[in-house]
């Protein structure tokens, strides 16, 4: 199994979570499977793409106030405050397969919330290919640094033993058509797993 490692850079980005109180949209502090995979699938128009990532650093957290307009009535709704990561740098790991093998070394895509307002322009630069030769050495016991649906853990060689490891559960959106989707049970950052070191933020034992 191999992975393509990309550096992701963006001047302003929000890995938007659900809007709270109708007025506040926080950003996730990692790059969830659902967001990066969705963005890559939309960009390349291919389906067999699986990716996840994490944030390495960012200069500061900013807040953008934006009042969505109701196109039917022409009136503005209550303004939504969006958390924005300024000058963010992250890492994206793409599972290498027939649909991803020819990914370019450099490309730009739009990812995250408020893309129509100029957020989420991201430059991806290929850093290296990671090949898993010895599974025993490749996989480490540690704390997950991203969000991956349970059903896709195997694609990243992430092993989660429900009886021995402590999870942090949550749900990620899984589109079922262009306008519908479901939320699927996922492991969130902070979960104890056995997996590739690059997906872990902290090693245990």
């Amino acid at each position: 199994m191999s992975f393509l490692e990309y550096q992701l850079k963006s001047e302003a980005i929000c890995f938007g979570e659900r809007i709270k109180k109708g007025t506040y949209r926080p950003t996730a502090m990692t790059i969830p499977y659902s967001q990066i995979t969705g963005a890559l699938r939309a960009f390349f128009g291919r389906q067999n793409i699986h990716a996840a990532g994490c944030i390495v650093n960012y200069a500061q957290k900013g807040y953008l106030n934006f009042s969505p307009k109701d196109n039917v009535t022409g009136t503005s709704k209550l303004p939504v405050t969006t958390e924005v990561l300024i000058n963010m740098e992250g890492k994206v790991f793409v599972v290498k397969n027939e649909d991803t093998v020819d990914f370019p070394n450099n490309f730009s895509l739009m990812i995250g919330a408020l893309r129509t307002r100029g957020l989420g322009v991201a430059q991806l630069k290929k850093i290296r290919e990671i090949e898993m030769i010895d599974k025993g050495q490749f996989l480490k016991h540690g704390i997950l640094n991203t969000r991956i649906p349970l059903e896709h853990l195997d694609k990243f060689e992430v092993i989660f033993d429900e009886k021995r490891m402590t999870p942090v559960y949550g749900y990620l959106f899984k589109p079922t058509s262009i306008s519908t989707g479901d939320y699927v049970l996922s492991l969130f950052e902070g979960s104890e797993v056995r997996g590739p070191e690059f997906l872990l933020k902290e090693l245990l034992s």
Partner: protein
Amino acid sequence: MIEPELHDIGKFIDYKATGIKHNLENYPLQLTTDTWKGIVEHHCSPNFDRYPACPDTFKLCIADDLASSFSRYSVERGEGSLTEEEDPYDFSIYKIWNPSNQIMKQSFITSFEGIKEIYSFLAKNPTAEEFFVQYNDWLKKRAEDAKRGQNITSLYTHSKLTGQFFRILTSDNSSFSLIPEELKGLANKEVDNLRKQKKNKWKLSIVQCQINFAQTPMRARDMNVFKIQESLIECIRKELPDNVFFSTSNELVLIVPDAQEVLTKLRKKVGELGFWLKITYAETQLSAIKPQLEEIQGNKQIALYPELPKEISPPICELCQLSKAKEQPWIDEESGIREFICERCWKIREAGSLLPKFVDWEKMEQNPDVCWVKVWLDYRMLLSALKKLYKEYLEKTKAKIPQDIDIKFPIISEFNQDYKEFLSDLQDNICRNFDLKSIQEILPDFVAIKINSLSEIRLILSIYQETFEKYFPKFYEVDSPLKLSIVVSNIKFPFSEVWRLLSDVTSEVNVHTIGKGAIHLKGKDVRAFLEINLPSKTLLHKLTQISKISSKLGRITLYDKRDRDFLRYEPLRRAIAQFGYKNVLTYAKIMSD
């Protein structure tokens, strides 16, 4: 029925002065009550003639052993020991986190008159509650063991814990089976052997349980989640009064005969409230129980969640994001905002205003600033700090230091009482210094204060530092397990972000002011930090305004010899050398407000 808490009442009597042993076996008058029997038979050692002769006193003997703060025979005098004269018994408690200089050379009762009073009290067959009311002061002052190096817990804690262990051992006769025939005809030494045998055979489980919530409180009413978390802890404490040995506002350590039974109970509660629990548990022999769970072989870590479906079709709850939201949205009366939330989060919101002052503050026209003050206690760091401090104390007493110093349950339980007193004292001190209308207690370790000026943070830091020094001065010498987080934000600022910053405990004292910066300090530096000789408010304001453009420009200004205020910035430059630029700049911004 034996009142196990009273088993060491004889320790109030000074043996040297009266010749009466603490198990009262050689007192001329004897009673026939069960409690008296417990007192005289609670030891099996060559130092005493009487020893356990029935299952209850046998279990009391083991409970007494488990509730002692050290492995009874592990602390020995080393080479170059002090003589008995130089190294007297000290009947007062040496709290390793807050040692006192006072030495108590005798126990409280030195005459037969006093013993008679104890005898009369016991003749009334008192309950444990009556005992604690009557002798509260003595129990808290007298060390469980008077030998220096071992006098680290109070008789109060020891008596309480003996009661808890005794009831655990007697409540489950299948796990801790002992028939009277097993003790029949045994001599003192043989009972002692049986005690050791049972301690290696009988098992107990230690369960450490950390309560977390998935909700992101957004409205004042969502903050009810803290109160519900607190009531969950209280509920567990009430249901299992003998099993809780340590507790904070979000953590419990329990000792139980069967971990699975407790986990089932907890799972049910979690399902009702929507919290999730991080649990570590381990089963071990009585002889090996200790608070350091990770050192017990076969320890397990699990997480208890409410039932989670594999898929949820929209809408998902906007607050916890772990359940399907109700089809009917929650509609805010004022703004008309619709929120899709689940049944459990709805209940939390509908529980009324458990924290009423937030609702008032939110309604105020000028949205006020709120200072969120949270104290954190790290259980693992606590064990490691106590171990270091205990070792230091043993070195001081020239005791032979065992290779693996064990911190046992009585010490953390003793600490737990001081920690709770500290929190209560801290809140009292805050209440004394701020208007009561401006204070909202959320949890014993979490309070919100409506402030008029950022400079009031200085007062809060000062209150914390004074209270901390009163209770835990020795923690300045180790990595302190106690951390303080302060976040100042506007009342309208999203609480989720406040909570994230409060949870950021990179240093022992952490202050975040939204839009102004952060301060991270070691606890021992707080006093000196607060004594920084600040220049005038005008100068601080000037520096703040410059650093708004660029913090680097602010730094350049401070060191610019051509600046007309160069000399007046001198105290700040000295402070920067000691505490770092970011800390001092943030402090300057705070104090210029």
